[in-house]
């Protein structure tokens, strides 16, 4: 499995563990509605698992973005900063938030796999 999910509705794709891609899920963008602003983490900074690394704001509300696994942020999506609506139109693709160098692979394995995340969504 290369894409895993958090209970906070982030996804992380670890095809390249030195630059694993993180974004918000389809469910998250639906719940938020029109995204109008994102605050992205600082490139070069290392964050702990569960730490708040950014914010996504819709017309109605603001939500924190959490770090799914510990690691150093190596890149942020400047295109998303310029056009936050990418988080709505393509949350699993061009609407990604940042890339992280994952050092604790066991933390990745503890996240929700797609069936696990689907099961979580059914409880909401």
């Amino acid at each position, binding site marked *: 499995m290369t894409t895993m999910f958090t209970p906070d509705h982030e996804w992380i794709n670890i095809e390249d563990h030195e630059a694993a891609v993180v974004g918000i899920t389809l469910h998250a963008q639906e719940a938020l*509605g*029109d995204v*109008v*602003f994102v*605050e992205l983490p600082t490139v070069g900074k290392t964050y702990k698992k569960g730490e708040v690394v950014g*914010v996504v*704001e*819709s*017309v*109605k509300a*603001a939500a924190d973005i959490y770090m799914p696994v510990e690691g150093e942020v190596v890149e942020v999506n400047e295109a998303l900063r310029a056009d936050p609506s990418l988080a*709505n139109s393509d949350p699993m693709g061009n609407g990604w938030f940042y890339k992280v160098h994952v050092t604790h692979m066991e933390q990745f394995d503890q996240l929700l796999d797609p069936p696990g995340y689907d099961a979580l969504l059914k409880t909401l």
Partner: protein
Amino acid sequence: MSADLLRTPLYDLHVELGAKMVPFAGYEMPVNYPGGIIAEHRQCRESAALFDVSHMGQLRLIGADAAAALETLVPVDVVDLAVGKQRYALFTNSAGGILDDLMVARRANDLFVVVNATRKEADTKHLITHIGHRCQVVSMPDRALLALQGQKAVMALSRLAAGVAGLTFMTGDTFTLVGAECFVTRSGYTGEDGFEISVPADAALALARALLAQPEVKPAGLGARDTLRLEAGLCLYGHDIDERTTPVEAGLAWAIQKVRRPGGARAGHYPGADTIAAKLAGGVQFKRVGLVGLERIPVREGATLIDAHGHKIGLVTSGTLAPTVNRPIAMGYLGTNHAILNHEVYAEVRGKRQPMRVTALPFVPPGYHRG
């Protein structure tokens, strides 16, 4: 969703249209439809949008003494309101604080009153307690309320009843729409031209479908209603105004006509009149202002406003990223010293200072049809 929540007569239509339903004021209401808040907001500014506001309270005050009686609860001239005219009013408490804001229309045989959904039970009790002996206070749970708003609302609605085009801003009359007798006022809560339609509950669905069948009209939810009213500089009760604010701090003194002010023929004699008179004469410590963010970060309700030295000088009471203005906008209260046009202040957002500029309200020019 909780089984205790009430539904308006248009609930099934909202679900059919794919609305996201949320609890609001005890009702299950559409916050937005699949197009999203920004698209619905633009639809209203550029064409016409249909809102279900049936959760709001509709009341009739019946009796020859109704207008004079209502004047004992509001600082507003109701007695001189001509038949067919509508006016904005405020219930005040003994300290001059605002208990609710409302719309009053004079009809041939009654006063037609619309109050906020969150306050309708309290307002009804307030009316019965204080003026129930002078006029009949009649709730109208058998009526739905639709708002058709936008510059093209008149085109759409006049296909159902040509006469509505003859109304001007803040006037109303009875029209037959899709076979049902409706009371239509040319008013609303978006800053645009438009109408609010009080319709028998059992005719609401047919009317909503007839309006949505017009090429100018699409449905819009409470989310867009909120961003539209904020751009229009209109207060939301419980947020921008409440019992802690009098009409003077709130910048709503324009709603107090001369005849109800000190020296006027029917001055005072409403709750808190002395306090409000003193503030009208002597000024206030805080004032409601408009604020525009100088950066992109939305500044929301509850954000503290500070000066360049970090001293607290006010509070944001409503805020969002405005779809039409495409910038963060907010309303809030500032110490009078700082409530000066173009004055720069800071809002604290997640521990950081966001510069904002005090701006004239409304944020967008109103589209009212004054005739």
